[in-house]
């Protein structure tokens, strides 16, 4: 009975989700009985070493792939941000966002203004006419974020979105993400996958640690640190240290 209550109020609910790739001897179990529930508006970071099925997990929630067993419930619209921006190179920054609005059947008359609004929200108001290849990596990811927001999503999936950026840009984009979340005007649930423990603690309301091969939830860490946070502050570093120790323990298990 409790499960159904959780399912109704949760933004995303995974119940005993497993995923096996391939069949027979060559089968690889990516996820094993993962259960995870997020409250609306919650920011959940998922960390783990290589081979923990982090990306698989997001693909399943996004509906790009089907779980082998288990149930996934998502309440609301889902948007996905990948490690690479995945912008369409034949469209300008504005055009990319406008296409997302168009796919959602936003009337033509509103699209233009809404596009500029979204670009403004990631501080790229003056760059609507630029093509993706003319922008820096960080700017492209911000366009990708604006495109994700254009979907008016309730759940935003982020797969190491800042992994390919330099440290300074990444720190600034963390602040940006906090700001965008406050401004979006409704509870935006975020599932954020990363292998950077500090980043997870800096951003998340909760950090979920997955084991490797197969991916299982080992432990969940609430992050009771007040916002605004800094990635180099003492409380962030301290909790990140604790989580890193547990992660290393898990990784070294595979070396034996």
């Amino acid at each position: 009975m409790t499960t159904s209550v959780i399912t109704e109020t949760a933004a995303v609910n995974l119940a005993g989700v497993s995923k096996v790739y391939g069949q027979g001897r060559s089968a690889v179990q990516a996820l094993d009985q993962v259960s995870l529930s997020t409250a609306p508006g919650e920011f959940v970071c998922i960390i783990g070493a290589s081979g923990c099925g982090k990306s698989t997990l997001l693909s399943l929630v996004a509906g790009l792939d089907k779980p082998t067993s288990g149930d996934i419930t998502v309440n609301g619209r889902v948007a996905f941000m990948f490690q690479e921006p995945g912008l369409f190179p034949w469209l300008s920054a504005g055009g990319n966002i406008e296409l997302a609005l168009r796919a959602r059947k936003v009337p033509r008359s509103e699209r233009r203004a809404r596009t500029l609004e979204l670009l403004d929200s990631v501080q790229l108001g003056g760059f609507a006419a630029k093509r993706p290849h003319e922008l820096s990596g960080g700017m492209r990811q911000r366009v990708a974020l604006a495109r994700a927001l254009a979907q008016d999503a309730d759940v935003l999936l982020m797969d190491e979105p800042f992994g390919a950026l330099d440290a300074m840009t990444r720190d600034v984009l963390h602040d940006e993400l906090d700001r965008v979340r406050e401004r979006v005007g409704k509870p935006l649930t975020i599932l954020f996958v990363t292998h950077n423990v500090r980043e997870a603690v800096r951003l998340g309301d909760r950090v979920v640690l997955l084991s490797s091969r197969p991916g299982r939830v080992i432990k969940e860490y609430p992050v009771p640190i007040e916002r605004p946070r800094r990635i180099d502050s003492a409380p962030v570093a301290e909790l990140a240290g604790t989580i890193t120790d547990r992660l290393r323990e898990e990784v070294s298990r595979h070396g034996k």
Partner: protein
Amino acid sequence: MASDTLAGLDALEFGVVPPQPDLRERTARGWAVVWPKLAAIALVWVIWELIHLTGWKKFVLPGPGVTLSNLWNQAQTGLLWHAIGITVLRALVGYAIALVIGTVVGLLVARIPPLRAAVGSLITGLQTLPSAAWIPFAIILFGLNNSAILFIIVMASAPAVANAVIAGVDNIPPLLLKSGKMIGLRGVGLTWHLIMPAALPAYMAGLKQAWAFTWHALLTAELLVLVAGEPSIGQLFAADQDQTDMPSTIAVMIVILILGILVDIFFSQANRRIRDRYGLSDAR
């Protein structure tokens, strides 16, 4: 504070604007492109002249001077221009038909797996079939007329167009497809807004190849499918061959070469524009 830092990072990204080249620099660049071509033409001329001077096959092989004055004389008559007009028109019409058919078939085959399994290799097979193989079929089916020639062109180049579409679709980065699906593109919208533009660079490269097929097939067809009352480049060839008129033959070959180069320039320009637009060109 954070937003100031962000604005600063963005500004640094666009800090340096390379100066526009002035007239002298542009002239220098233009010359750097032109002189190797002029030198190549001069070299061919000299070699040709030398071969002529050795006296090898001297009764049938004319020198460059005789040939070019022959070309000049032909250019004064309406016949050459009329022939060029008809041949180019046939090429354009045949190519256009092949484009439409090849693109539609290519998209269907690329997007519908059973169709691909059924006819995918057939298309590649058709592409390797020499265009001359269609000539008897076309003449029996249509007779000695324009339809036969257009049919041969279409059979030769439509498979190349279809293959270009298939290759273009196959080479779309999976990330773009995932992005498109996530923003909610489906069906026709997905094809129109994502598949087609994403396949465009590979498609353009294939179109150039398809043009080569068109051109080859057309000249082969014109040599053998002689349509009464319609002078064409192929027909000029046939007449020159009958009269053992070597200077005229080489003159017409030069015309074909020039037309080929012009079309190649057109395709290179179109290709470059698309690659610039997609950010595929190297930074200059």
